[in-house]
């Protein structure tokens, strides 16, 4: 009987448990690898510098990378559908300068903040509609989004605009302390975004449809899932995250600047891939992307601790990325052989 497989042993031996786990969750392995690398980096840095794993340093890790983490959540949605969104860095810059200029002209923050988010979501909607209804390659559609948002940012202002609004600056300046640890509202926003993203991905029909589209769009459609809606929505979510990141970055730097975030889209994609999301779609975790961002941030911190050139960050991240893509290929190849 080739058609009937026996279920793994129900009286759980440790080995059986592990084999059940790995057969069920083979796609989590790259994310575990990212966790392992993060631990190695942290422990290694602590041994080398002796003063790396301090509460202050670790708290700063979240603070400095909050915007990246928010962008990574949106990017994970897009990449799981086998798409890509190159516009996020520009969207972040545009919404940032847009918000800063509105605040400078006296518009209250409770209008400005939703306006920034809507602006980001609208650019995402444009990209999503191009991808879904005009059948444009995601790469090209989001490249158009990139230029559009960057252009709009320069239309708003060519120079940086300082933010004086206290409620926006509060997001950054408030430090909720626990001993030597602290977290800012921007950090909380980032963590909340990750949590909401993870719940949506794993616990809602929309989230599962996103995975289904990444697995096989044709099959998902024949199964009667709402494919078109999901494909547009992932870009809207990514745009929304772009707007949110614009808000967080503006609060972080105290100003809007039209040249912010040039090349950030690539950092985000790198973090997402290092976090275990497959560029070909169908597999990936929001939590993994968070780990990816932490790996990226830790490397950056280590480089600045060493006093070396920041370009080394890119070299090391590039090498890691290469390694991860190879590892993912190997895992995918193995699971394909299994079928």
């Amino acid at each position, binding site marked *: *009987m*080739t*058609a*009937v*497989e*026996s*279920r*793994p042993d129900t009286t759980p031996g440790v080995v059986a448990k592990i084999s*059940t786990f790995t*057969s*069920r969750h*083979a*796609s989590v392995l790259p994310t575990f690898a990212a966790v392992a690398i993060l631990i190695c980096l942290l422990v290694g840095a602590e041994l080398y510098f002796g003063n790396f794993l301090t509460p202050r340093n670790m708290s700063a890790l979240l603070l400095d990378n909050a915007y990246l983490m928010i962008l990574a959540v949106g990017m994970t949605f897009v990449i799981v559908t086998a798409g890509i969104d190159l516009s996020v860095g520009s969207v972040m810059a545009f919404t940032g300068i847009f918000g800063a200029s509105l605040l400078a002209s006296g518009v209250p923050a409770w209008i400005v903040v939703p306006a920034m988010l809507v602006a980001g979501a609208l650019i995402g909607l444009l990209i999503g509609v191009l991808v879904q209804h005009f059948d444009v390659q995601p790469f090209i559609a989001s490249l158009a989004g990139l230029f559009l948002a960057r252009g709009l940012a320069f239309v708003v202002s060519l120079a940086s605009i300082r933010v004086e609004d206290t409620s926006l600056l509060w997001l950054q300046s408030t430090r909720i302390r626990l001993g030597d640890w602290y977290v800012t509202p921007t950090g909380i926003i980032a963590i909340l975004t990750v949590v909401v993203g993870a*719940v949506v991905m*794993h*616990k*809602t*029909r929309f989230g*599962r449809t996103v*995975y*289904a589209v*990444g*697995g*096989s769009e*044709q*099959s*998902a459609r*024949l*199964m*009667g*899932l709402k494919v078109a809606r999901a494909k547009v929505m992932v870009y809207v979510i990514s745009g929304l995250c772009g707007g949110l990141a614009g808000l967080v970055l503006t609060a972080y730097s105290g100003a809007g600047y039209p040249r912010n975030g040039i090349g950030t889209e690539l950092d985000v994609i790198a973090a997402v891939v290092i976090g275990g999301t497959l560029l070909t779609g*169908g*597999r990936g975790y929001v939590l993994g992307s968070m780990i990816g961002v932490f790996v990226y941030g830790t490397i950056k911190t280590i480089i600045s601790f060493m006093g070396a050139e920041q370009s080394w960050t890119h070299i090391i991240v590039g090498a890691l990325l290469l390694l991860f893509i190879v590892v993912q290929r190997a895992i995918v190849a193995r*699971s*394909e052989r*299994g*079928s």
Partner: protein
Amino acid sequence: MDEARPLVELTDATVRFGATVALDGVDFRMFAGEVHSLMGENGAGKSTLIKAITGVLAPDAGTLTIAGDRVTFASPHDAQDAGVSTVYQEIDLLPNLSVAENVLLGREPRRLGLIAHRTMRERAAEILADLGLAIDPASPLGIHSLAIQQLVAIARAISTDVKVLVLDEPTSSLDLDEVAELFRVIRELKQRGVAILFVSHFLDQVYEICDRITVLRDGRLVGEYLTTELLRIDLVQKMLGREVSFFKARERIEAAPEEQEAFLSARGVSSAGIAGADVDIAEGEVLGIAGLLGSGRTALARALTGVDRPTSGIIRLEQRDTRFDSPRKALSLGVVYSSENRRTEGLVGEMSIVQNIALALQAQKGALRRIAPARARELALSWVEALDIRPADIDTPVRHLSGGNQQKVMLARLLAISPRLLVLDEPTRGIDVGAKVEIQNLVGEMADNGLSVVFISAELEEVLRVGDRVAILRDGRIVETAASADLDVDSLMALVARPDLPEA
């Protein structure tokens, strides 16, 4: 049985695609608790009819009633809601998601708006257990075999309140055991009163499982028959609409093959999937290869043609030791392989017939010595004529061609480089009976012109009809090589299937 009211009744259905009429005033009905087969050549309108029932396309004219109610389906989703579920030929599931999700996606149990994963696993486990399938519902679908995936697709189809189940070529990628498993499930569903539409190219399977057969030809209804009252030969005749004497047995080479010089002889060839294979092929000989799926048929073909590098063994070509490091090397020595996956490993669907035919020849000549377009067209035209490829317009993109004609284009491409040995891996899979016969005859003609052919097929009759000798594969080994005149389908079947049974 005719007195009972049909569960599905399609009357006077007409579907047009532009100028062509794909379905012309066809009546079709299905009864609860019956397995119904739809037979016809490719292009007869089978898939169009299926699409009309499953909501993939709306007929231009005609009415569809299900359980007495008149319905119109705007999408497959509507059809599913009305109790019509479909399992497609290419398994349309999601390998990256769990088995449970594949069964219940779109209908997941939820609590407080969020998916309740545990309830979903339990529900899926119940549905799978109903089908006698004990697999872990939380495991990703991709790790399971095609057969299990097929059964999961059926589990998905029947997890709703299913009245009508459409199985489009469900057995094309299954081996004998797996087919038996599928048939067990079908019989069980039949007991529950589900009306099943079973579409297959395999006549044996149709006769084994089906109660009723509807035959289509050129978009028109030929008739509806009870399986028990329709002889096979009559069925084929109705499908083809021409005299069955068209099947012509190939004249055998009378000389015993041992007396001829072997063109290719392989000793102890092993690679992944095949172990210690000895093969001799004489010039102008057709060696049929019979074996079940997974018996090493394709592995042998790939090892002989340099697609996969053999791990051990020697291959001698005209008494000279040869190493096929790559398909390119094998090609240069006149040994060519035609893959069973003509869409993915054969033709370039977007390119025209002429481009596809010229491809291999151009590759052989090298990129710098370009074949003049006029020369390529001339070449293509001659092959289109010689192999009777239709449509004869050589600028048609290959993907618009029927399976049989695609296969012929692939043959033409390989023949254009004047090979000495042609290895055909399931050249007749998934193509209609008429085209099948044409290809079989072509292989015979080629062999008569001195070409050596290795002919692999899952259909034993075909292997016997085409091959001068037949090599029988079982579990990655050649268990016997015999002249096909000494075999008949039953004895061959016994050799292929059950090693421990006495000779039939």
